[in-house]
């Protein structure tokens, strides 16, 4: 067990995977000489050389297609898309090819490809560099989408991703890279399709993922101290496959749920969770499922406007106050 940042956990895991399996290789923009825009791949080119750590031109459709082909032929590519905003040119390769080939051609070739990419706003990177587009991928059968919120989960899920025979969208978050936490050593993995109850509670459930799951846990702990509210926090960890059982068990216990997500509200992850809960736990609901998400605008550059548009701890607190059962408020 060691204390490290989310960035360090990713770096160390990539390095271990490169050491463990010579079919694993990394590719992406600026990951070699420049050591990664967010320094996740620092030192790896020097250690493993340009056959294993490949700097690509700025052409996501090209190198994601290349990685898909490499995976078809038995390699294990780990692609870095600098931020999720730049994944858009590669949609055809991901959705029409990587997600379909294993299925359409009689299971002849699995696509053991991992696409690592950070999402999220709040860094004053303006509208085209601050998005949360994970729901596009969570919608597509044939893909797996995971979104770890802690350094330990980042490590455990990245290892699971590398060994998965399907293309995996591995969602990181710019604001999580410096977050520190305990990370177990050794052959530690975290399975896909299993949500975690990161805090137990009785009065209501907050369901979240990625960075917002970390914010939710923080808010829940604080409000337990300050407001005597007992809040359960569910960290989805995987968006596809989605662990409905953990969500439903929690809602059956607390009878009230908030979905807290950094993406836009309409057609978002929250909409999917809310629909699932009303379909499968209707008689356990004491209030409509509430969604707390960001304002539906292209994210402004101006610091104050950006802050106003993004959701955060304050929005969640307000939602908890308005949804908590009266007798416990």
């Amino acid at each position, binding site marked *: 067990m060691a204390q490290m940042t989310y960035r360090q956990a990713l770096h160390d895991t990539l390095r271990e995977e490169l050491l463990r399996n010579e079919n694993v290789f990394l590719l992406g923009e600026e990951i070699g000489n420049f050591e990664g825009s967010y320094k996740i791949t620092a030192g790896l080119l020097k250690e493993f050389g340009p056959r294993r750590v490949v700097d690509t031109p700025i052409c996501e459709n090209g190198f994601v297609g290349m990685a898909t082909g490499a995976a078809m032929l038995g390699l294990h590519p780990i692609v870095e898309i600098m931020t999720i905003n730049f994944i858009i040119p590669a949609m055809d390769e991901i959705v029409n090819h990587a997600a379909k080939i294993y299925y359409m051609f009689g299971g002849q070739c699995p696509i053991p490809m991992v696409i690592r990419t950070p999402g999220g706003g709040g860094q004053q990177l303006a509208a085209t560099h601050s998005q949360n587009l994970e729901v596009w991928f969570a919608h597509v059968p044939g893909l797996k989408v995971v979104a770890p919120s802690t350094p330990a989960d980042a490590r455990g899920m990245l290892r699971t991703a590398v060994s998965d025979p399907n293309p995996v969208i591995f969602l990181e978050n710019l604001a999580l890279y410096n977050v520190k936490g305990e990370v177990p050593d050794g052959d530690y993995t975290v399975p896909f399709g299993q949500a975690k109850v990161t805090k137990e509670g009785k009065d209501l459930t907050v369901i979240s993922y990625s960075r917002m799951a970390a914010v939710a846990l923080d808010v829940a702990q604080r409000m337990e101290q300050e407001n005597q509210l007992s809040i359960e926090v569910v960290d989805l960890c995987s968006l596809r496959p989605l662990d409905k059982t953990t969500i439903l068990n929690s809602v059956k216990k607390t009878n009230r749920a908030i979905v807290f997500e950094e993406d836009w509200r309409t057609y978002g992850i929250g909409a999917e969770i809310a629909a699932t809960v009303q379909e499968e736990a*209707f*008689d*356990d*609901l*004491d*209030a409509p499922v509430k969604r707390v998400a960001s304002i539906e605008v292209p994210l402004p550059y101006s610091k104050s406007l950006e802050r106003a548009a993004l959701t955060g701890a304050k929005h969640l607190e*307000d939602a908890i106050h308005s949804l908590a*059962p*009266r*007798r416990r408020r």
Partner: protein
Amino acid sequence: MPEITMPRLSDTMEEGTISRWLKQPGDTIQKGDILGEIETDKATMDLEAYEAGVLEQILVPAGETVPIGQPIAIIGTGAGTIAAPASKQVQPTKAVQASASSTLEALPAPAVSAPHESAAAGDGAAAVKASPLARRLAEEHNIDLRQLQGTGPGGRIVRDDIEEVLEQRTAPAAAAQAAPAPVPPPSAPPPEAELVKLSRVQLLIARRLTESKQTIPHFYVSSEVDMTDLLAMRQTLNANLGEDGVKVTVNDLIVKACALALEKFPEVNSSLKEDSFVRYKHINVGMAVDAPTGLVVPVIRDANSKGVRSIARESKALIAKARNNKLAPADLEGGTFSVSNLGMMDASTFIAVINPPQAAILAVAATRKQFVPVDGQPVIRDLMTMTLSTDHRILSGATVARFLQEVKQLLQNPYSVLG
């Protein structure tokens, strides 16, 4: 053969109670005749005939409540007249003993715990707003949802409300066991007590006032006003008034003074809606009126831009309507501030409960002669205490004090309210 259905008489109306029928089966009906009276959640209103013909059949007898849209009577040529009201042909949502009262002796248990008829939380509860969980719990514990007042959003019955009923069920029994009761437990009231059913208006008042006192952080600021000059001015205003002239009351002047002060303090003329303050463009002052069916608050619209004589005429008409149960929903809607006056009943001071979603209500007490020092000498003046109840989420003490000061100055310089 045209059916007459329960009309929608207000925006919030979901069902209505037939207070009484004024026509009987067999009566010839002219277009525009008043067939009967319908009590809604807001007011009692006339049921007007839109077709001429013969009232053939009354489908819903007086005292019963049905949802809007349900047929309540049939007007035709007279061929199919059926004398007796056929109440069993329709499914009333509930039978309300409108004015009748029954002794408690006849009732087995407290209202909340007695499942009515066959369906406890079943079909009859469909019109009741309740969360799915509350419905399930009510069914499990045999609780009649129709007997509960929901405290959730929009009056929805939620788990909290069910839990309270369950606690009340166990509490008296536990108390009785703990102490060999010298007083009979609350579940068995003395047989001479009477159970009087609440009318829809009374139910609504009960719910709204509970909600107000439980959810709005009230605070109170009082001020004493010298009314001597205002009373003198009023006397002048009303002297030499012709036979049909409308007298201006002290309350009319207070309403006008409040309206003028609200113009200067728009933050008092506002509401809280989620994360916003709603500042109203119109100043509509409600007056609490003691009507036979309970407390009602008809509204004088745009009171700031009306003269005191117009206000007097309107308030007189509204009070008369209130006393006769003739207030229309439109008379009761849109208030942005309220005045409650118990001065004529000699109340020396009192505080009122805020009428949501308004931010404040002014409680006006009696005017009394008191000695006041003027230039070091005791002088008799007419003093009145007024107390403003205020929503602390919307207003702070300093603003409220300044607002009250403005009202006071207007009343003490009464000619300014004539402007």
